C-alpha cells in the first residue's frame, strides 16, 4: 500500500476537487491519498465526491486547514 500526498492549500473551488480526482485516478487499489486543503467548500466537495464513489475517507480538522485521507478500494 502506497500513500501519496496532495497539497492544495491556498487553492479555491473547483481546483482542490479537480486535482483530487486526478490524483485518485492514478492510485492503485488499496493506496491512500492525503489531501491538505484550507478552503471549506472544497472540503465538503471532496467528502461528497468520496461518498458518491464509495471511497472511504478520514477527515482531520487541523484548525486553519483540513487533512482528508482517502483510501481507494
Amino acid at each position, binding site marked *: 500500500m502506497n500513500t501519496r500526498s496532495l497539497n492544495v492549500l491556498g487553492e479555491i473551488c473547483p481546483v482542490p476537487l*479537480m486535482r483530487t480526482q486526478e490524483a485518485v485516478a492514478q492510485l492503485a487499489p488499496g493506496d491512500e491519498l492525503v489531501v491538505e486543503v484550507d478552503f471549506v*467548500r472544497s472540503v465538503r*466537495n471532496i467528502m461528497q465526491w468520496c461518498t458518491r464513489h464509495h471511497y472511504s475517507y478520514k477527515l482531520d480538522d487541523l*484548525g486553519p486547514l483540513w487533512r482528508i485521507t482517502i483510501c481507494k478500494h
Partner: protein
Amino acid sequence: MTRRALFALLAPSGVLAIGWWLYQMKPQTAGLWLAGIVLGVAMHRSRLCIAAAFRDSVLFHDTGPAKAILLALALSAVSFGWMQHQALQQGLRLPGNLYPITAGTVAGAFLFGMGMIPAGGCACSTLLRLGEGHLRFLWTLLGLTAGSLLGAYQYGWWEAVLGKTAPVHLPALLGWPLAAALEAVVFVGLFCLLRWWEQREEGL
C-alpha cells in the same frame, strides 16, 4: 487558552456590544444587525454557496447546493406570495421591489456568472470567505463594489438603452391559483432536472 477559544469568547461579546450601541441610536438597526449575524452564521455553517450551486452541478454532477438554493427560492416564493396576497386582501400596496425580466437581466446574469466562477464566489460567499481569513477575496470584494457602484451610477443610461418595461405580476395576469400552480410546476420540474443530471454521472 487557544486562539479559537479566545475568539469564541470575544466574538459574541463584541456582537452584543455593537448591538447594544446600535440599539441606543436606533432599535431597528440593532434588530437588522442581529438578523444579519444570524443569517451569516447560518450561511457559513451550512456552507451555502450560490456559485457552487451552478459550478458543482455542471462540473461534478453534485447538485446538493443547487437543490438547497431551489428549496430556498421555493420557500421564499411561498412566503412572499402569502405576504402579497394578505396585503392585497387588505387593500394595501403590493409589497416588494418588482422589476421586469428583460434581455438586460439575461445578459447581466450571464456576465455575473462568468465573473463569479473565476472569482470563487458570489456576493455573500465573498463576504463569508473573507471572514474566514481568505484575504485574496478582498480583490473580489473590491471588484464587486466597483462594479455595483458603476452600475448604480450608470443605471439611468442602461435603462434608457435597454428600454423601460413594466414588471409582470403573475397572480394579476393569471389569478392566484394558476400562478401558484405554475410556480409549483417550475420548481418541481427544476428539481426533477437536477435529479436526472445528478444520476447521469458515469458509473452512478
